[in-house]
């Protein structure tokens, strides 16, 4: 089976490719990249005027399967990912049961093989049941196929356990992803503490709640000499702390999410629960700092934190509403519209943040168009303008604060192992 992608603008920072080229895929593998490739027969995709990128890699999403299939399952989650141009996604372990043992890891991998549209990589829990008490069987998680460990959604309260998690996991060379939130000071808050929480009479979460934990984890990483990855960074000081740590040579990496460079806490006004997320949407100066961090390389990658929730969990009192928003189907266009179009990042830099660096973190062989690699390819029109319509989402959940946003950047094709699962913007 041959697929030829003709005439597209191929961007692959890993191989320093940036120009009009053809890509030949044979039996799911990239076999040739060059000018004017011809094939006698096979599937020809005409990509003139479009950009051909490595399939996007998401280091942080929630597929809700097992346990919360009413929000999302592996089938719908991977459909949504494919529509957004993602070909490899790593799902967080806060399922029910928690993904803290090899049985659940295998369940996810097997179900993804059966029902999944894209490559799915489970992330195991750091602690059993994400309770923050005892370490999970991290070695077994790794050998079952987990690509990282995290207690995402729940911070690891005990500094001692965090230190042990870093030390122990280093044996297995598996990434540790930390959700940074000091719960004492967050104290049941429901949005960023600041002007808008004052205005609405909602309990605020101080930015310090995130920053204290970022500082702690940097210190533990430096002390143990084990890398740590900070999830969903959202504040100016967090970014500054990471910048400083990197200068000291600490092996810290971090991600942010599109909502942290697009929205501010004001989005919660009118008690809009769609804008309720953890960490909460911050302020203008934080958004500027996130963009600056992306530009200067302090922030290594953009993750979606795709967090599907049922309407019944959002259409309630603000205090009771679930945290999070779906992200697969808006992440790339938001990045193009808010980072590439204004000139903060080149498209090549964006590919580093959405393909190369997440692959490196997870230790998976993805995020590049090298010859010999499996053909995970995303073809986009970065100029095409469209209006976000949640009713078009393939995700089971529609909890997006971006409905009605006018964005640039449409995903035309998503190829996984050489199979076009999205073709001319339609999921097959």
């Amino acid at each position, binding site marked *: 089976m041959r697929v030829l992608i003709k005439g597209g603008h191929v961007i692959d920072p890993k191989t320093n490719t940036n120009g009009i080229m053809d890509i030949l895929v044979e039996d799911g593998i990239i076999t040739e990249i060059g000018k004017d490739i011809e094939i006698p027969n096979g599937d020809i995709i005409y990509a003139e005027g479009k950009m051909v990128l490595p399939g996007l890699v998401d280091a942080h999403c929630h597929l809700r399967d097992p346990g919360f299939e009413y929000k999302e399952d592996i089938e719908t989650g991977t459909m949504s990912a494919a529509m957004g141009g993602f070909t490899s996604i790593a799902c967080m372990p806060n399922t029910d049961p928690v993904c803290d043992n090899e049985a659940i890891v295998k369940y996810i991998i097997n179900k993804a093989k059966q029902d999944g549209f894209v490559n799915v990589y489970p992330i195991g829990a750091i602690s059993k049941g994400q309770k923050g008490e005892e370490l999970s069987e991290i070695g077994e998680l790794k050998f079952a196929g987990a690509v990282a460990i995290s207690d995402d959604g729940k911070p690891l309260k005990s500094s001692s356990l965090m230190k042990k998690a870093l030390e122990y996991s280093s044996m297995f060379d598996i990434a540790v992803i930390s959700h940074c939130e000091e719960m004492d000071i967050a104290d049941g808050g429901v949005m960023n503490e600041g002007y808008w929480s004052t*205005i609405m*009479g909602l309990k605020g979460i101080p930015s310090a709640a995130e920053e204290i934990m970022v500082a702690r984890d940097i210190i533990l990483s430096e002390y143990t000499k084990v890398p740590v990855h900070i999830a969903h960074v959202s504040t100016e000081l967090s970014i500054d702390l990471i910048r400083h740590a990197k200068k000291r040579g600490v092996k810290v990496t971090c991600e942010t999410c599109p909502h942290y460079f697009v929205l501010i806490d004001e989005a919660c006004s009118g008690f809009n629960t769609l804008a309720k997320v953890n960490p909460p949407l911050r302020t203008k100066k934080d958004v500027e700092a996130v963009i600056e961090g992306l530009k200067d390389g302090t922030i290594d990658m953009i993750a979606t934190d795709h967090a599907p929730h049922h309407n*019944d969990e959002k259409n309630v009192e*603000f205090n009771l509403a679930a945290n999070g928003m779906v992200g697969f189907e808006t992440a790339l266009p938001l990045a193009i519209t808010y980072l590439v179009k204004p000139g903060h990042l080149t498209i090549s830099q964006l590919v580093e943040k959405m393909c190369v660096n997440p692959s490196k973190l997870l230790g998976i062989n993805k995020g590049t168009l090298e010859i010999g690699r499996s053909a995970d390819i995303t073809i986009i029109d970065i100029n095409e303008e469209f209006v976000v319509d949640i009713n078009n989402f393939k995700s089971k959940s529609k909890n997006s604060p971006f409905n009605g946003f006018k964005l640039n950047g449409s995903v035309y094709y998503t190829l996984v192992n050489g199979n076009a699962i999205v073709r001319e913007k339609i999921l097959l």
Partner: protein
Amino acid sequence: MALKSKDLLGLKDLTAEEIHYILNTAKTMKVILLSKNKKTPHLQGKSIITLFYENSTRTRLSFELASKYMSASAANISVASSSVAKGETLIDTGKTIDMMGADVIILRHSMSGAPHLLARNVNASVINAGDGMNEHPTQALLDMFTIIEKKGSLEGLKVAIIGDIYHSRVARSNIWGMTKLGAEVSVAGPSTLIPPELERTGVKVFNTVQEALIDADVVMGLRIQLERQKKGLFPSIREYSRFFGLDEKRLKLAKEDALILHPGPVNRGVELPSSVVDSDKSLINEQVTNGVAVRMALLYLLTRRDSDESIN
């Protein structure tokens, strides 16, 4: 004129004109309230439901009497706060009440924004009778009514609000309402009980009660909740009272004819000494009467938003 919205969710959303309209209507209602035969047919055929998820004596009774004085059918529902998370959802409860023909649902809830959620999901008018730390618009309306009755207008008046501003929906509603009507609002309280960036609402924030009181025309004490002490927000009632209590000596900093208000219930000897509560300057009892008049006005205006008739 008519009120723009079917609901009264907060004073943040009202125009100065709408506030004046409500307060002027309340003047007429007060005449009715003080007459011997406290019964008018204005709400005949209307059904008014109070839905309270928090305990309340005065606000609830005030609404209930306002409804009854105007011949509405009134009913009360109390839901224990503890069952909010596990029981029937607010929207389902609200829709049930709506379907039984309610014209107005008066909601008190421990969570900010609950009335907004209810209002979006029912046809009935929703009146916010206090939501979390957000707003308590009818309390602020009655406070403003009381002040205007004595001073003629809020324009240019200096108002000092003292106490736990952070948790106070009364303070928030008064800040919105009074600044809209041209008052200059100052607040003072322990710095742990002042919400961040409050100055951006246009009020002056002080850390000493003395600074806020200088030349004040109106002084409003807020109730201090004992449980805040356990959360470490201030060390003791004793220290609170020592630094923020509104005693006679401090009140001398205010204008001689300054009015004293308090939304009640008062912790005597904490926010205010009994001698101040019971003094001539104190309008605390007057506030209660005016509360009924203001609520009568609101119920009247909201139930005939579609007609041009006016009681004035």
